[in-house]
């Protein structure tokens, strides 16, 4: 027997009541998160149903042009007690005879709430403490610090100077270095860290000039937290490096991380006075101008 209930209150339905349940696998979509839907739900207006949904006459004010309908969360459709679909009942039209509705599954509700939103807009935790380790793994850590060679990290940042090393590939495909006018920090990055990001994390040399430390969030963590923040929890995650499940096809994806171009290392600048000789064209005399400049920086 097909039943619809709203938080345990059962609707009184026609004996010929039916509903069309449409299933959508969200894995088949890249631009949206569609959910299952129960379509063509027509609930008769009677004393029992009016007590649950309210008088149909009052719905008129909720249906101005463009309004998608009134939502009632906590609705479920069951057959013989077995749950077929649950979510929010959306009443799109109400007349003296029927409430015309459809049921949006909980997944569809979440998909609609998150549509066209950037993942960075979610309430990710802030001010986290970075833990420097020799190695990271997806089971114990939320992020990793893969060592990556990035000669261009400091390009366009800070003062430039001549004869700063620049990496290129010659016509034979061999890596070469030439000297160019580039950011001073690029030169420091080469000198101290050979352009490596996340290098020497557990060594005392970490505070040299040009240091770049970029924690990369594990993809597994991002997926888990994105869903958790929307009230969904992963039951089984095949993206695991757990040695108990080496043969799972997604196991190799456990090492995937999301790259970013942000360094969490903040330089601390020391400023001081600098006497800068300057020629005054009005007085035709050489003068000394004192300016404050950055004299030292500690990483």
């Amino acid at each position: 027997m097909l039943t619809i209930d709203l938080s345990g209150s059962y609707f009184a339905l026609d004996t010929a009541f039916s509903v069309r349940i449409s299933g959508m696998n969200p894995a088949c979509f890249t631009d949206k998160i569609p959910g299952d839907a129960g379509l063509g739900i027509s609930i008769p207006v009677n004393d029992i149903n009016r007590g649950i949904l309210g008088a149909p006459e009052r719905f008129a004010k909720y249906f101005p042009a463009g309004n998608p309908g009134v939502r009632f969360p906590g609705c479920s459709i069951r057959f013989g007690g077995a749950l077929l679909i649950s979510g929010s009942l959306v009443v799109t039209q109400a007349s003296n005879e029927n409430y015309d509705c459809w049921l949006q599954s909980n997944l569809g509700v979440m998909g609609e709430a998150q549509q066209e939103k950037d993942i960075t807009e979610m309430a990710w935790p802030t001010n986290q403490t970075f833990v420097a380790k020799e190695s990271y793994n997806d089971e114990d850590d939320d992020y990793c610090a893969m060592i990556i060679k990035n000669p261009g990290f400091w390009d366009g940042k800070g003062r430039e100077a001549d004869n700063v090393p620049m990496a290129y590939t010659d016509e034979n495909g061999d890596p070469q270095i030439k000297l160019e006018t580039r950011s001073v920090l690029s030169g420091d990055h080469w000198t101290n860290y050979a352009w490596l990001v996340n290098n020497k994390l557990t060594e005392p040399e970490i505070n040299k000039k040009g240091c770049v430390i970029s924690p990369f969030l594990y993809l597994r963590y991002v997926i888990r937290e994105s869903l958790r923040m929307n009230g969904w929890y992963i039951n089984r995650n095949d993206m695991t490096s757990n040695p108990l499940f080496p043969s799972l096809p997604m196991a190799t994806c456990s090492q995937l991380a999301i790259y970013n171009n942000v360094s969490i290392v903040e330089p601390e600048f020391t400023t001081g006075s600098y006497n800068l000789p300057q020629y005054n064209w009005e007085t035709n005399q050489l003068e000394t101008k004192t300016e404050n400049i950055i004299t030292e920086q500690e990483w």
Partner: protein
Amino acid sequence: MSITVTVPSGITLSGNPVWVTATGPAAPAGATNYKFAIKIESPGGELTGAPFYDAIPPDDALFARFNIQGYVDRQTVYAFGWPVNNICLPYGNYTHEVKITGGVSYINSNGDLVEAWNASGETFTLINGGVSQRQIDIWKAATQTFQTTYITPGKFLTQRPQDDYCHPHQPVKLWFYNDGVICNTLRLVCKYSDGTSVTSNIAITQYEHYLHELSVNPYHNSIDLVTESGAVLLNWTARLYNNETTVSDERRFQYDLRPCERPFWLMFFNSLGGIDDVYLSGYAVEGFEVEGTTVYKPAQFDNSIFDRTLVTPGKQGNNAWRINTGWKTATQMLHLRDLLLSREVWLLYPNNGVTNYYVIPVNIGNSQAELVDRQKDLWAIDIEITEAHNSQFSFDNRLY
């Protein structure tokens, strides 16, 4: 955290709502989306897709009630012993066990999902079948159940009336569920027209927690229907014993000795999990229903007198019968309600010489039958039956 789960006691019919209740503690501080959950497992593997999970929020009294009929009701392929070679046939697959484990689920104050399950679950047994809502309400008012009405008192699983009239060669079936007491004797007490009686104790083997099919017609139990002195067996009783201790209730049957040229029997899955038999002693009209489509095929230059332009590419047909029940008593007519509702029906169709019977799966058509008119003394109806096969080929009756 653990919750207390209460499952139906004893054997339960899977076609009716199967209620499982749960009581438990209040939600922890800071928890949201607090629900009582149940896990439905099939220890014997009969339920495809098990285990199932369901969760509903408890009410203010920390009580939740689940209807799990949709999870535990299953489609089973039924059969019965035909021809009658074994008096007692056990069936272990017509019942199935279900295990219910309770638990709680909620989102804690850290936003993490917490699920906690009880260490062990409760198990109970189900039989396919059901009773009407009116019967359920009567049982509830009298604090009775299927277990206390049929299983505990040892009743056979049938709604057929006492003194049911049967054909002398009819496969008369009674179904019995062993709920702990094993029976080793089927006792038939047969009464003859000269006032004598014969008691036959037939040794049988039964298994605990199995459904058993018993063929109780004296004809199939090697009992003379006519004695040497010419006395005719008129009626008999059937009962199960464990040594000399009665286990089941007693059922009485009568022979319908009126001549019938072509007796038909309908076997059907009844509401209580067994298979009943009904004797159709009236006239029969045998028909054949055909349906098909016709398409037009343009004439070709080289067509002969044998070619056609209207072609029937798909034609299918099935046998149909309209069989009269023959005169029956009021209680026999009311028993036909179970037949008319049954979704698994078989016609035992006699061959030309009425020396053998074919088993034909059939469907009973929709009807608005007048079963009993209280102004009359005997009643009969026509039953519309169609074969449960649709085929473009015919069946060769001559082979059987």
